[in-house]
């Protein structure tokens, strides 16, 4: 490689090996997130400046293979093969060598310039495994650096290795490992055929890799070859070889090739790793046995969730009181007097203070106090490795909705805030599952909706009725999930998930995660909150609010049985769900809702605000994840459902209350 000053580096590897930790260590906090063109696969990009070099580092999604059966895998392999980053850092989990080497073998097949970061060395020695990095490097023909990214060990060695490649001091030999003779013979045969018949395609992808993919019957590559002029002659030969391989191995060719790769991985792993002592994992193992126990696992799950919400509400409430004191008690009134002193006309003052500042302040005082503790606890659950256990326990129930256990993770997130929950639906493998999960998670009562349910129903009607609403919500989600499962075309996927060992979480990593997520939330939600508050304020000043109330009155008064003034809070609750309660107090002129609403009306009000459109920040997240059409469908379905259920509830509850 010539001496380039600016290099593109990609981090690739299995899920859960610490790629993102390496990424953060390399780039500091300089992390921005963006989208792949047109797809919902997130990639993180960052820059590292070192000794006059600029390294653009890209964090690829965590994958186990480079097959054609999942979006992330296709995107990653195209990035590696076509965009050709200058260096690929293959981050692997040293304590799980075989499975990680399987992916490395595939990277080498792509004839990519790979450096290996053998991560989690500390955990590896805790497990009693000793790895000979020197041997690993020679058997793979690539540079290998041992790292413990979480404490920053080995990162500088990794950087100097990258620099040495950039300076041309270290040459990377592109020599993919060889298969067993039966398959290798056919790969070479096919490779020659491709080189002579499809020179253009062989230019784009490495020809040996193309032959392997054709032998695996990779649908995307087969289709590409088919379209080319000489494609059919190549395919004929490929199919002949596929038949031969299948006859020899007795299994379909792609499985036979996967087995071959695992053989290579296993051979190397056996050679370089030594089990020096008994693993010291007794505590982690006991914890695992207990938390995913077929019976005790469930009460533990419920207890953990209860504790989580208790902490979020206690800390959140405390922060709200403190922050409200600061903002509403001191800052805002002073600012208003300042604006009046400056001699601005009243409408403009009201737009500035209630519109622009009101939106920001409400976001800071109501949303962030719940969301930040929630993110910290979530990071804790994620980093310890509890969430996969919860997914394991809930798999059975989630299957009834056509989802699998992993969907339980965004569902938990949904109780905190729908925005991270929507984004969290990415962990589902297929588009179909992402859509069903997205549809379901926005219905989970988030912290803001909890404010409405507790503040109205629990306080004025009775705690039991509030709990009833939660229960009803769970049933509703189950039923709707089932309906969505039956209507959305496609086959349900099953759960296949690696179960990580429990690990002691690092506070620093947790805080970085929380910081990035909160930043993400602020970027999405705050502009919308400010814009929304501005619109309401302008409408209020122009006298449109009463008109809206009148227009909506057939639905609100006749069908839902609510007083006419309740239309405004519900309509503007789109901005943020707790706003429905705050505005209700505004328009009713009192916070003692018992004076203006009957118990039935309160329940219907809470029910409607629980179900109808997710708030505008969630709509933003939905748009980002699912595009306009699907978001519109979800919104329409939610509104229709809220109105229908609200009306039915009004009529049914009137019989009892």
């Amino acid at each position, binding site marked *: 490689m010539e001496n380039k000053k600016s290099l593109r580096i990609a981090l690739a590897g299995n899920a859960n090996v610490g790629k993102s930790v390496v990424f953060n260590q390399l780039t500091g906090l300089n992390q921005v997130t963006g989208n792949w063109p047109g797809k919902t696969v997130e990639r993180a990009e960052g820059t590292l400046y070192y000794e006059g070099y600029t390294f653009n580092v890209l964090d690829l999604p965590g994958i186990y293979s480079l097959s054609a059966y999942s979006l992330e895998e296709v995107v990653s392999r195209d990035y590696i093969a076509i965009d050709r980053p200058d260096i690929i850092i293959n981050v692997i989990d040293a304590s799980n060598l075989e499975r990680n080497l399987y992916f490395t073998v595939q990277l080498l097949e792509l004839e990519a310039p790979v450096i290996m970061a053998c991560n989690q060395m500390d955990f590896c020695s805790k497990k009693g495994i000793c790895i000979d990095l020197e041997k690993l490097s020679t058997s793979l023909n690539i540079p290998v650096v041992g790292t413990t990214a979480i404490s920053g060990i080995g990162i500088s060695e990794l950087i100097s290795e990258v620099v040495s490649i950039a300076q041309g001091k270290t040459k990377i030999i592109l020599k993919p490992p060889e298969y067993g003779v039966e398959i290798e013979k056919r790969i070479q045969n096919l490779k020659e055929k491709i080189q002579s018949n499809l020179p253009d395609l062989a230019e784009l992808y490495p020809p040996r890799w193309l032959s392997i993919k054709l032998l695996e019957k990779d649908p995307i590559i087969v289709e590409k070859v088919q379209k080319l002029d000489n494609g059919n002659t190549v395919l004929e030969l490929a199919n002949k070889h596929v038949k031969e391989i299948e006859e020899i191995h*007795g*299994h379909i060719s792609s*499985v036979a090739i996967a087995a071959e790769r695992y053989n290579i991985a296993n051979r190397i792993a056996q050679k370089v790793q030594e089990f020096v002592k008994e693993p010291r994992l007794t505590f982690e193992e006991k914890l695992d046995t207990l938390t995913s126990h077929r019976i005790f696992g469930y009460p533990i799950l419920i207890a953990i969730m209860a504790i989580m919400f208790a902490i979020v509400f206690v800390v959140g409430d405390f922060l709200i009181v403190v922050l409200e004191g600061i903002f509403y008690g001191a800052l805002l009134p002073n600012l208003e007097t300042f604006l009046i002193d400056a001699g601005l006309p009243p409408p403009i003052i009201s737009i500035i203070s209630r519109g622009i500042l009101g939106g920001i302040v409400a976001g800071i005082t109501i949303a962030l106090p719940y969301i930040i503790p929630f993110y910290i606890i979530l990071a804790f659950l994620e980093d310890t490795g509890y969430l996969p256990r919860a997914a394991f326990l809930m*798999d059975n129930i989630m299957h009834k909705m056509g989802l699998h256990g992993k969907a339980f993770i965004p569902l938990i997130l949904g109780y905190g805030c729908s925005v991270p929950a929507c984004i969290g639906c990415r962990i589902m493998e297929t588009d179909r599952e992402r859509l069903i999960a997205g549809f379901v998670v926005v219905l989970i009562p988030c912290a803001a909706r909890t404010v409405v349910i507790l503040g109205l129903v629990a306080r004025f009607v009775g705690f039991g009725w509030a709990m009833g609403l939660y229960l009803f919500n769970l049933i509703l989600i189950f039923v709707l999930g089932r309906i969505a499962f039956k209507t959305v075309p496609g086959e349900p996927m099953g759960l*296949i998930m690696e*179960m990580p060992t429990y690990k002691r979480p690092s506070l620093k990593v947790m805080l970085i995660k929380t910081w990035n997520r909160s930043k993400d939330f602020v970027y999405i939600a705050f502009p919308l909150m400010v814009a929304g508050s501005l619109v309401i304020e302008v409408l209020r000043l122009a006298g449109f609010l009463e008109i809206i109330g009148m227009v909506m009155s057939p639905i609100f008064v006749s069908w839902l049985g609510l007083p006419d003034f309740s239309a405004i809070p519900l309509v503007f609750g789109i901005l943020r769900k707790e706003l429905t309660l705050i505005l209700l107090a505004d328009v009713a002129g009192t916070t003692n809702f018992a004076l203006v609403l009957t118990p039935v009306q309160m329940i219907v009000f809470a029910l409607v605000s629980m179900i109808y459109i997710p708030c505008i920040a969630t709509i933003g997240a939905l748009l980002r994840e699912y595009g306009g059409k699907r978001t519109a469908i979800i919104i329409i379905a939610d509104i229709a459902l809220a109105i229908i259920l609200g009306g039915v509830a009004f009529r049914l509850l009137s019989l009892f209350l």
Partner: protein
Amino acid sequence: MSIRKFEELIPCFLELININGAKKLSIQEMADELGVPLSDIETVMSVAQANELFTNDQDVLKITEKGKEALRIHREKYVHDRFIHRKRGIHRFLAKHKGKNSLDWHKHGLNNSNISNFYQNLEGIEGRIEEIIPLTQLRVGEKGIVQFMFGGRGKVQRLADMGLTPGAEIILNKKALLRGPIEIYIRNSCLAIGFGIAKRIFVKPIDS
């Protein structure tokens, strides 16, 4: 010996010849292995030989093409009836007494190429088909060797990528309640697999 038992015994006998290959196996050993009286084996042998299912070349038993076909049909039917499409109630009755037995794999979500793959897998099984069970029937703590996965290309590929390749050794770690997922130990790490997938992974249990 009743006709039914007889029908069942021929494929079992063929399985035995198949796994033992050219190895000599005395009639007594076969009888012990299958747990039937000596006379039954002799009858089965003579009928099978008359039907040209195997050849006897100086006591070296070799399965013929016709025998292989019979074996394949037996394996297919065994897997189908036992694990894929277990008949219950009236269907079981009909299958038993009217000989109605649908082996229509298209109904199980397989296309033509998947079906031919499945046949390939059946041929690749090392050992008698009667030893093969789905992963879900393995007991906790028991060891097994993966034989084949049943399903579409994408699903099978996904499992193979996670290390579930034929010949891989697994230990069943945990089973969740009811038809919940299972956790297995494979290639030095733990993997959770949903029930629906696990019951389509066929393993041969081995003593640890």
